[in-house]
């Protein structure tokens, strides 16, 4: 095995096993900090030995053995030392995967969104604080502080470590999906920084969504989000040109798209829709599937896309969704109708670069070139993403 393959295999095992082990330890020890420290130590040992000795047949059991040794040191002063140790010796298999509890606790609404994201990346995905800091362009100290505060609140305010009851499940699942969606968006097209796309965060979000889908196989919105992320990632290769500039959907080379992945994700959207509990993620996935399955830009089913945005607006009446509906309207009723619609959003979206970029395109189509240039300049001022800036600069 070459080093790259070996590292990739190691990363995959870590991702699968680290969260499982953390979740188990949190359940037994009842303490996030201690559990994370122990897992971190165990991973360091594995990192030293696995590349030399090979990945063990049962990596989870191997890690648990190492973790157990560390736990004994940490637990000595615990009043329930023997009881907890016994559980570590024969970990009781809980009815459901512990990782699901871990995810729900990390995404508890009593934590800020920032804390939810940091905690999920740390405990479920096994990111180190400096990896999280790099992903969100902030300092390691800020992330460490955020994690400390979040764990302290979990303990002090007794945020429970469990899967929410049926009555609360929808709302709580909404929090989890929002965290994954933010993670994905941040990774897919970052709002600032040198790299236009951080593959890691988007990949992590895809993995988390797939994990959530395995753990909750009958939740249509989980299917929707998972499909949405896969549909985006299946087309990722054609999004940037050789110089790192963003390529618009219209100009993308569709032969580079991963057709089997697109078909599988589109199937998932259909399966979700059969459950008859529509929601914003399913609708967004359906819209992206329309684009992804279309053989060319010219043959896009814009009426269908317009109608899907119309339905999405009923679930999510936000100005950004209205902006996207207006873009679809351009291909159903023409640029004049679309511009009329876009212009009603000035107050809500005046600080959003895509509002100005969309106006610029519509104005250019209508031959109002001076106004179009002004709109492009306004868009340029409002985005820090290098790939988007390059595209806008080219237009000006």
């Amino acid at each position: 095995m070459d080093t790259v393959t070996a590292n990739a295999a190691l990363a995959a095992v870590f991702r699968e096993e680290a969260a499982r082990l953390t979740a188990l330890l949190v359940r037994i020890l009842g303490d996030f900090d201690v559990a994370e420290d122990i897992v971190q130590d165990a991973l360091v040992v594995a990192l030293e030995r696995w590349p030399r000795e090979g990945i063990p047949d049962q990596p989870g059991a191997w890690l648990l053995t190492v973790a157990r040794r560390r736990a004994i040191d940490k637990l000595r002063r615990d009043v329930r030392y023997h009881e907890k140790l016994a559980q570590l010796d024969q970990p009781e298999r809980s009815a459901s995967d512990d990782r699901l509890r871990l995810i729900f606790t990390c995404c508890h609404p009593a934590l800020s969104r920032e804390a939810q994201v940091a905690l999920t990346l740390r405990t479920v995905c096994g990111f180190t604080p400096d990896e999280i800091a790099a992903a969100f362009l902030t300092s390691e100290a800020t992330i460490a502080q955020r994690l400390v505060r979040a764990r302290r609140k979990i303990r002090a305010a007794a945020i429970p470590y469990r899967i929410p009851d049926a009555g609360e499940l929808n709302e709580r699942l909404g929090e989890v999906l929002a965290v994954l969606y933010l993670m994905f968006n941040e990774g897919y097209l970052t709002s600032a920084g040198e790299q236009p796309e951080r593959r890691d965060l988007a990949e992590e979000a895809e993995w988390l969504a797939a994990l959530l889908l395995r753990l909750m196989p009958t939740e249509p919105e989980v299917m929707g989000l998972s499909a949405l992320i896969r549909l985006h990632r299946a087309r990722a290769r054609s999004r940037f040109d050789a110089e790192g500039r963003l390529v618009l959907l219209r100009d993308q080379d569709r032969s580079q798209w991963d057709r089997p992945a697109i078909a599988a994700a589109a199937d998932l959207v259909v399966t979700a829709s059969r459950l008859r509990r529509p929601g914003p993620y399913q609708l967004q996935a359906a819209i992206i599937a329309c684009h992804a399955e279309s053989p060319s830009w010219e043959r896009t089913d814009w009426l269908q896309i317009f109608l899907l945005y119309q339905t999405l607006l009923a679930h999510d009446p936000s100005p950004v969704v209205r902006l996207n509906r207006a873009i679809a309207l351009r291909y159903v009723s023409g640029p004049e109708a679309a511009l009329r619609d876009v212009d009603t959003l000035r107050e809500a979206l005046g600080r959003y670069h895509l509002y100005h970029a969309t106006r610029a395109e519509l104005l250019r189509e209508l031959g109002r070139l001076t106004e179009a240039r002004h709109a492009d300049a306004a868009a340029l001022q409002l985005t820090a993403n290098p790939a988007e800036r390059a595209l806008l600069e080219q237009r000006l």
Partner: protein
Amino acid sequence: MKYVLLFGGTREAQQAWDTMPDDVRQQAYTRVEQWFRENGSKITGGYQLQSPGTATTVRLDGNGGSMVTDGPFIEGNEVIGGYAEIEVGDLDEALRMARTWPGGGIVEIRPVVAR
């Protein structure tokens, strides 16, 4: 797990409460009393407070000196109208209680320091 629920609202809401017709206020009281009855087994104490206009604030300078001012210490538009001490299993249970509070406004859930 012990928490204190702090019931708050805006000054306008407080004034509306103070000036509402007696029968309307009575109805509102009935709903609040019913909430206290339904959650009786989890409530270990608490009071409705008199209006913020009756509050007096003492600020200590840490060197033995102090300054007394008229009014509540929270600045801004929010006022505390009352509190309840509760004993429940975890934050989710406290959240369920707070969500059904019939008094409207804001409910802050604070765990207490256990000694």
